């Protein structure tokens, strides 16, 4: 097991394995998203209060969930990279940040569009979760800005890893404080005592979307890590062998 892990952490091996892994994430993910979108948008009944407007939940919730998940992946790989000095882990953290920022942005945009018919405004400061998503977006920006400001890759990896960990300690505090600050959002729907408060015809498409988004996210992050690894190892022999076609000299 440990041996396998060490083998995976070697960049050329990861590069080979990941090429085979991506379809296993991408295709099931795409199928789930198509199923979730069709049954969520057309089959599921309209909400008795929100009408058809609730259907944006099928994009909003997976995006919001992935915005947190990406930060967790980022912070965990940063910790692994910092503690065990595994270079691949730093590459994963670097690849997760822009993806996380995009999903955070998507969650903000869909939340805002959803808020328009529900609250009558595009932006509601009284809603704690929208506000903490915004702070989350700023955390991603800070992380990416720090990475971009340091030229040496090794140094950028370590410094941004410290920042990611400090951020990970702070995120629960930020959520709590924004929650305390004000509350107007609808309560949690899926994870609560006594089972989900949502009809199964609405629930299954949502779960399909969440898993579909996660799988596609997995495929995207693998792709990004692959390019990141290629760039970082650009002077190594194995990259030259892959990138320069045979018989092209050099």
């Amino acid at each position: 097991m440990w041996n396998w892990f060490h083998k995976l952490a070697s960049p050329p091996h990861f590069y080979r394995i990941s090429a085979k892994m991506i379809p296993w994430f991408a295709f099931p993910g795409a199928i789930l998203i198509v199923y979730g979108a069709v049954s969520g948008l057309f089959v599921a009944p309209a909400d008795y209060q929100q009408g058809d407007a609730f259907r944006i939940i099928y994009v909003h919730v997976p995006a919001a969930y992935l915005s947190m998940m990406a930060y967790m992946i980022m912070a965990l790989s940063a910790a692994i990279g910092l503690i065990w000095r595994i270079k691949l882990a730093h590459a994963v953290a670097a690849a997760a940040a822009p993806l996380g920022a995009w999903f955070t942005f998507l969650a903000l945009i869909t939340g805002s569009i959803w808020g328009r018919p529900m609250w009558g405004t595009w932006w509601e400061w009284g809603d704690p979760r929208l506000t903490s998503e915004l702070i989350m977006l700023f955390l991603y920006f800070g992380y990416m800005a720090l990475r971009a400001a340091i030229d040496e890759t090794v140094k950028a990896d370590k410094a941004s890893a410290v920042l990611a960990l400090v951020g990970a300690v702070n995120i629960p505090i930020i959520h709590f404080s924004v929650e305390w600050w004000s509350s107007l959002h609808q309560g949690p729907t899926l994870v609560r005592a006594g089972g989900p408060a949502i009809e199964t015809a609405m629930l299954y498409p949502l779960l399909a979307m969440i898993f579909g988004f996660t799988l596609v996210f997995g495929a995207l992050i693998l792709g990004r890590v692959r390019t990141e690894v290629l760039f970082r190892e650009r002077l190594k022999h194995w990259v030259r062998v892959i990138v320069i076609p045979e018989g092209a000299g050099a």
Partner: protein
Amino acid sequence: MSPTSVSMPGLWHGFSAVIRRDILLAWKRPGDVLNPLFFFAMVSTIFPLAVGPSTEQLQFSGPGVVWVAALLATLLSLNSLFLSDFEDGSLDQLVLSPQPLPLLVLGKALAHWLISGLPLVIMSPLIAITFQMPADTINIMMVTLAFGTISLSMLGSIGAALTVGLHRGTALLGLLILPLSMPILIFGARTVSLSAAEDGVAAGIYFLAAYCMLALSLAPFATAAALRISNE
């Protein structure tokens, strides 16, 4: 007992030497201390000019304005926390010294608070009076600012350590630290508002005190790690 352990200055000695040195340096260059304070006063002055002079409006926006101004002034002063040490090489000495680095950076961050945070807390009633704040609220505000500025000095020392030696450090520091400091701002400003509305303030003050303790105990380790990375 090896001879090195006898000749090595103790933990407390190293810690207090760092604080004394930074305070002495600030004393010799009073401009560095005064500029953030002037900035604090000026930002607080801009708001009434922009919002209008009506008493209700000033009382309503006062806690938020004082807190935002304090946050920005602290941020401004944080930039220089490790900069001069980095430039003249004494940061290397700090990193190489036999005392544990987290303890020494705790000393530096506390010295930063004594130089910038404490004067700001002492000056804040002057600003608060111009916002027509009642006396009880001013007391609460000073308590929240005291806890808040300590937390900001600790949190900011992490950002200052990460950005020291970078060319675009100043703007970057704000980008790194502002999102992390939201809880302090939220609880600080809201507690003062609650006090002005004669509502319970205990929860907010407890939170700020707890955050302050957390920052005091954890931030020095992150700052030390960041300094080792930036200074290698």
